[in-house]
């Protein structure tokens, strides 16, 4: 017997250990009641407006459009949502679900740190405890978000196992949950994992697509010809695409092409060498070796650096409804610079993959085409990656001067404290 409600075509399911069964039954029951409860929707809508800052704008990229010979390029600026990315849509929704279940503690995995940041902020807003699991490598490359999470009162736990990136952070969070199922809700950050997470996350993210649809109708009076979104686990892309699945709009996912097509150098599941498997409690496409072990992945962007793919996207890839392409690290970095120079904003490295692909493919489209790119996050968090890439010497000089200044300040404070102690002792 198969539970069809858990599947998207051949993908999905709920391959959980027996110990987690009660937690999933509780989550599914609460989700089923919350999703039809007008009071829940009203509370989410109120906070999405007053706290998150929705709706996010759909920006007509005038100068980039001119560069594209008049093809009209729009950017859905999810990076202008509170905490800097689309992740807040799902984190806030699930935090409200946790409250509804009477849980007092949230846990989350995070790659780039955006989901961790969003969960930590939502926990602070609703008065819940929060612990975020983050790969050691990701902590090193996304330090500003680590600081942010701690400011919001979350503890950030370094995951030192395996690849020390997002895949292992998911494992660590799931394991923590098996110990604390009674008082803890696991806020899974992407549209993947065991049922009902792929559905819950898609539903909370689907307002990206529904807003976009009414905004583009207001602006152009018709739907776009093509929509691009970057795909790590797939939350911003499925949130964007879900509103357009029944429309004649071409949907394109940009995966991390990393350094190139060699195994371990990228995170391209569909556009690369992903194969069907069951891991991390769901059935989907995974980058894996001949023995079924997940492969190490690489991307300049921590948020795309993941071996699996949300099951609904795997299904949409299998049916051909969504096309997937791999985008190299270098092209994503160039796209950050191009957005900065031409439109006055810096997309996150993740989102820059989608921009790079759109800019590359647009010239082959008819000149009256309308193209939309979802900008899942803003680029502030990437400062420690982009700054040394674009301006190495100045950045090094700044860091060195800053270290000297902070050390000097600390020494002065120590000296002053010692002087005051001495005086007090007299």
């Amino acid at each position, binding site marked *: *017997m*198969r*539970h069809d409600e858990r599947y998207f075509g051949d993908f999905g*399911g*709920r*391959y*959980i*250990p*027996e*110990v987690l*069964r*009660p937690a999933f039954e509780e989550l599914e029951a609460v989700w089923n009641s919350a999703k039809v409860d007008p009071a829940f929707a009203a509370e989410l809508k109120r906070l999405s407006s007053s706290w998150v800052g929705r709706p996010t704008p759909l920006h007509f990229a005038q100068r980039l459009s001119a560069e594209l010979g008049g093809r009209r390029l729009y950017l859905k600026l999810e990076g202008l949502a509170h905490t800097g990315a689309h992740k807040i849509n799902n984190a806030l929704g699930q935090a409200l679900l946790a409250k509804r279940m009477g849980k007092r503690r949230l846990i989350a995995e995070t790659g780039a740190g955006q989901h961790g940041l969003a969960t930590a902020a939502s926990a602070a807003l609703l008065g819940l405890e929060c612990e975020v699991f983050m790969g050691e490598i990701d902590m090193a490359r996304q330090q500003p978000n680590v600081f942010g999470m701690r400011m919001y009162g979350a503890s950030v736990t370094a995951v030192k*196992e*395996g690849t020390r990136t997002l*895949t*292992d952070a998911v*494992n660590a969070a*799931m*394991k923590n949950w*098996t*110990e*604390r*199922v009674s008082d803890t809700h696991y806020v899974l950050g992407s549209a993947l994992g065991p049922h009902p997470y792929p559905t819950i996350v898609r539903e909370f993210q689907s307002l990206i697509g529904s807003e976009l649809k009414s905004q583009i109708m207001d602006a152009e009076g018709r739907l776009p010809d093509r929509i691009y979104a970057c795909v790590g686990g797939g939350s911003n892309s499925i949130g964007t695409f879900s509103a357009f699945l029944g429309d004649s709009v071409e949907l394109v996912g940009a995966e991390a092409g990393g350094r190139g097509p060699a195994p371990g150098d990228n995170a391209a599941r569909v556009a690369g060498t992903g194969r*069907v*498997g*069951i*891991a*991390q*409690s769901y059935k989907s496409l*995974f980058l*894996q070796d*001949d*023995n*079924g*072990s*997940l492969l190490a992945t690489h991307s300049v962007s921590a948020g795309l650096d993941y071996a699996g793919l949300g099951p609904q996207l795997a299904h949409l890839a299998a049916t051909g409804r969504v096309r997937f392409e791999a985008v190299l690290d270098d092209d994503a970095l160039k796209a950050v610079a191009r957005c900065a120079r031409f439109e006055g904003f810096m997309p996150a490295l993740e989102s820059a993959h989608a921009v790079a692909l759109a800019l590359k493919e647009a010239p082959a489209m008819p000149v009256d085409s309308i193209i939309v790119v979802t900008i899942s996050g803003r680029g502030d968090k990437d400062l420690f990656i982009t700054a040394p890439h674009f301006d190495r010497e100045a950045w090094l000089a700044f860091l060195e001067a800053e270290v000297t200044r902070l050390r000097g300040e600390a020494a002065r404070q120590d000296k002053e404290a010692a002087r005051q102690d001495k005086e007090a002792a007299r």
Partner: protein
Amino acid sequence: MSGIDRITGRFEELHGRVGLMTHAVVGYPDLRSSARIFSSMASSGASFIEAQLPFSDPTADGPSIVQANHAALRAGTTTFSSLDLLSSLRKETTIPILIMSYLNPLLAFGIDAILDRAARDGLDGFIVPDYPDDESELDLEAKCAARGLALVPLIAPATTLIRARALAEASASPFIYAVMRLGVTGRKTELAEEALSRLGALRDVTGRRVAAGFGIRERSQVEALALRADCAIVGSALIDAIGEALAKGLDPAAAVGAKVSDLVGAQVS
């Protein structure tokens, strides 16, 4: 003799004494040492062997076993070489050998292919922690039973007795695996009276032998289980013994043998 028969026979040979199922990751720290470790378990008095196929993402396991999985993979262990090792082990001992594996290594090898191979090589059963009874599309239980292999049901602390009975009834395995606490493998479990008396209830409602595991590390715990369970399962403590021996430059197989001898002392006391 089928795997199910061999497991049943071993329980009968225990004549009511508590058995010991010893676990290790195949290929940890490397294939050659691993073969010696499993032999040492068998010759030191273990009643059953649980041999884990190494996998990158062992989601039900704690740090010791995760680390052993990754080390085995780094040492080049494959599913093929793991099966070769177990097939050699079968030739040297009659101890029942159960394969513990997550689903994906089985899928990558091919479900039918690996079950055929296990049956042909005289292995006895499977323990698959990420295969719940309500995702039965792969039909593992029927496929195992058809080959005389046990697919051991896992029973969690919150699994109701009614559900435990249903899980056992749907399975041809002579025993169930009672998980003694929440969380992952490794950390020592405090065996509260409530948890111990539940073992008796599980035996009654399922009509199967009960093997108890998760956080069983010491002889005193095996002794505590002796009256209530048919078998104690020890894993992380043995992995830790291997790690400590390696750190001191000692023979890991001898260290595992000594630890197993210590643990089975409980059987005769």
